[in-house]
Structures are given as C-alpha cells and as structure tokens.
C-alpha cells in the first residue's frame, strides 16, 4: 500500500501524536502528509527494544513485536498544524525500526474514513506549502572548482539498497574503501565516509516514498581526479542546498547539520530533482596534491 499523488505531499516537520483507544500516546515528528495519509517517527520506549539495542541487535530483531505494537489498530492522529482539522483516525500500514533518533518506530499511516472537508483542508495546506521544485541542476559551492557530474574515463559502480536505514553503514564503508582505491588520503576517505552517511541518511529519512518498495541507488565513480558519489532516492522532493552553506552553530536547528558536513568536507556537491520521482545528491572529492598519506 502506498500513498497516491506522490507529488502532492507536504514535506515539513509537523508534530504528530498517535493516541490509542486506551489513551496511551506516541509522540513524533512527521515529514510527509498528504490527503490520504502520513508518515512519522514516533517515540517507542518499550523495554524489549531498549534491551535489544543495548545488546547490539540488528534492526530486524523484534520487528515482529514492533509490528504488534502498531498494526491492526486504529489510532487517533493529532497534528500540530495551524489549520482547523479535527483529530483524524489513522491505520498503520507500515512499521520500521528507526535508529535515527533512538527508540523510534517509523510508521506510515493511511487515514480511515477521513471526511471530505478535512481532506480538502489538508490538500489546500499541502498545495500552499509545496516548495517550487526545480528540474534543472542546482549549482553548489559557488566559486569552487566544480566538475560536471559524469566523469569521463572513470569506472562507475552501482549499488541498489532497499530504502532502509539498516544499510547506511554498508554504504559508507563501500564509499570509504573506494575512496581509498581512488588514491585519497586517510582523512579524505573519512570525509567521504561521513558525507555518504549523511546523504544516505537523508535519502532514507526524506526520500522513501513507498516505505518498503523504495530503492536508494548509490553510484560511485572513480576517475583520474578522485571520487564522485551519487545517491538517489525515489521521492523527488526538492530542497534548497544554499541553506547548508552558511551554517551558524549557534542558530542551528536539529536537522541540516549533516549537509553542512557534506558542504564543508567535499570539494563540491549538487542536488538534482525530478519532482515526485527522484532526488539525487552528488558530491565529489579530489585527490590531494600530496597523494596518499
């Protein structure tokens, strides 16, 4: 099951509260709302999850228990939006463990019997809030030397991952190792590893549209100059890269610092989007003049 009208989705941080019939609440932050449903990360501090995480369990362990916690129930969904809609009924259609903020479950929900008026209000809110997407490539890091993506004479390796945060560790290790093969020094390999981690995390966090059927594609090109990494998700949600270039730690919000690391660690990066279909973040790192350390 997935959401319809992929392009008409609101990407913003909205406080969400899922309330059981018994009155127990799960609080979270939603990044996607449409007139048919929403996705959110909800805090889930069940003891069995705490103990498993402390014993280095993989994400999938206790997945069945997590599913039992949320599936086959209808929650009352309350959003912290400045629009007049009553609490809505929502049924969970997908659950995943999330390591992004600790003991969180990523749940995707479809509204149950949403009335026409509420659907219309949400739809209008989404329409007003959707940023203008740009299909043309967006140049980044003005003044810096920026090679065109798609280097000639290099080798490109392509990896496809299911859209699960579980694989970010593997993706960053792959890129770090390939950066080493490309002749980057140890520090630069580390920076490529961090950049890959941050972009892949964002691809999972913001770009997993079908929440289970989506793919995150990683392409790594090694050429004479260094390494180029491209990470593509299947959501097609654009974002303004410029806000990550003037990072002020004293004014920083909880999100966004990851792409600041990409901006500062890499020699250049770009963002390409086809609205509702895919978003690709590309970055590159050249070999330093000193070569390997």
């Amino acid at each position, binding site marked *: 099951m997935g959401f319809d009208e992929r392009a008409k989705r609101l990407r913003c941080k909205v406080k969400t509260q899922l309330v059981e019939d018994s009155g127990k609440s799960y609080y979270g932050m939603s990044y996607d709302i449409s007139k048919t449903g929403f996705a959110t990360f909800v805090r889930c501090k069940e003891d069995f999850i*705490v103990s498993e*995480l*402390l014993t*280095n*369990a*993989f*994400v999938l362990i206790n997945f069945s228990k997590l599913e039992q916690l949320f599936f086959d129930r209808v929650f009352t969904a309350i959003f912290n939006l400045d629009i007049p809609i009553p609490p809505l009924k929502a049924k969970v259609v997908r659950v995943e463990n999330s*390591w*992004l*903020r*600790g*003991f969180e479950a990523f749940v995707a929900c479809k509204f149950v019997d949403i009335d026409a008026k509420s659907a219309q209000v949400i739809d209008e809110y989404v329409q007003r809030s959707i940023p203008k997407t740009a299909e043309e490539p967006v140049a980044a890091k003005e003044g810096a030397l920026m090679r065109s993506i798609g280097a000639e004479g290099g080798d490109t390796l392509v990896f496809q991952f299911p859209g699960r*945060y*579980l694989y*970010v*560790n593997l993706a960053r290790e792959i890129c770090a190792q390939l950066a080493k093969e490309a002749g980057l020094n140890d*520090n630069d390999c*580390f*920076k490529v*590893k*961090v950049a890959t*981690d*941050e972009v892949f*995390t964002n691809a999972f966090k913001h770009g997993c549209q079908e929440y289970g059927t989506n793919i995150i594609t990683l392409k790594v090109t090694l050429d004479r100059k260094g390494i180029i990494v491209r990470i593509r998700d299947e959501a097609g949600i654009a974002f303004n890269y410029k806000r990550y270039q003037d*990072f*002020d*730690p*004293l004014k*920083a919000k*909880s999100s966004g*610092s*990851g792409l*600041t*690391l990409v901006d*500062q*660690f890499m020699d250049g990066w770009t963002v390409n989007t086809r609205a509702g279909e895919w978003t690709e973040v590309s970055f590159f790192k050249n070999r330093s003049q000193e070569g390997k350390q």
Partner: protein
Amino acid sequence: MTVKLSYTTEDFPSIRATVYRLKGTVDSSKCLERFYEHINSNTATLFIFNLKEIDFINSCGFGEFLVLNDSLQNKGKQAVFTDLNPKVKDVFKVLGGLILLKVEASESEVLAKHSAQVKTDGAGRT
C-alpha cells in the same frame, strides 16, 4: 545497524570527577543511551569524555554529545571532551563543537586543572 560503541570509566573520587574513555562509532542518536544510567547514578561533578578512540562520528552522533552536555549542565555538572583525534576534530569544527562544547587537549590536563581548582577551593574555606 549495530551499536558499535564501548567505553571504560575511571573515577577520581577525591576531586569528584569521572573519565569516560569511548571507543568506536558515534553515529546514532541513542548510542549514548547506555551512559545515562551510569551518569545519573554518578555523584561526580566533572565528566570527562575522552574521544581518542572514536573512529567515526556523524551529525547525529554529534547531536547526542550536545544533548549529553545539556543534560549534565541541567544537573549542575560539567562535561569536557578531550583527546579529539583529527577526524573527530574536523567534524566538531564544522558543526560548532569547539564553540558549543568544552573541549580540551587531554584528560590529564583537565584532571590536573580540576585538582588544582578543588585544592584552591578547599584552602579558601575556613
């Protein structure tokens, strides 16, 4: 994803300080969860986090250090981060860690300073 972070501790009761020597990866937002139980029951006032053996940190992990720092400050305690290796230092620099957190070169320096301070405070009492 596995939690790949371990730590050892050393207490200095005479100066109410504890050193936590972290090892591994700080990349998920609850990787420091295990510390909170230990910290909450620790009566030390100075908490030194030695990051020499941290081999990877991302923005999420850095954020957890900020949360940890705030948590200790709210309890009237102090957190100091020491022995940053060059990679960790690069991340701290970009994300403002050198401004937002108390960072010192080494745990031994911090212990020596704190010990001197405790002695001075003790000598000043009548």
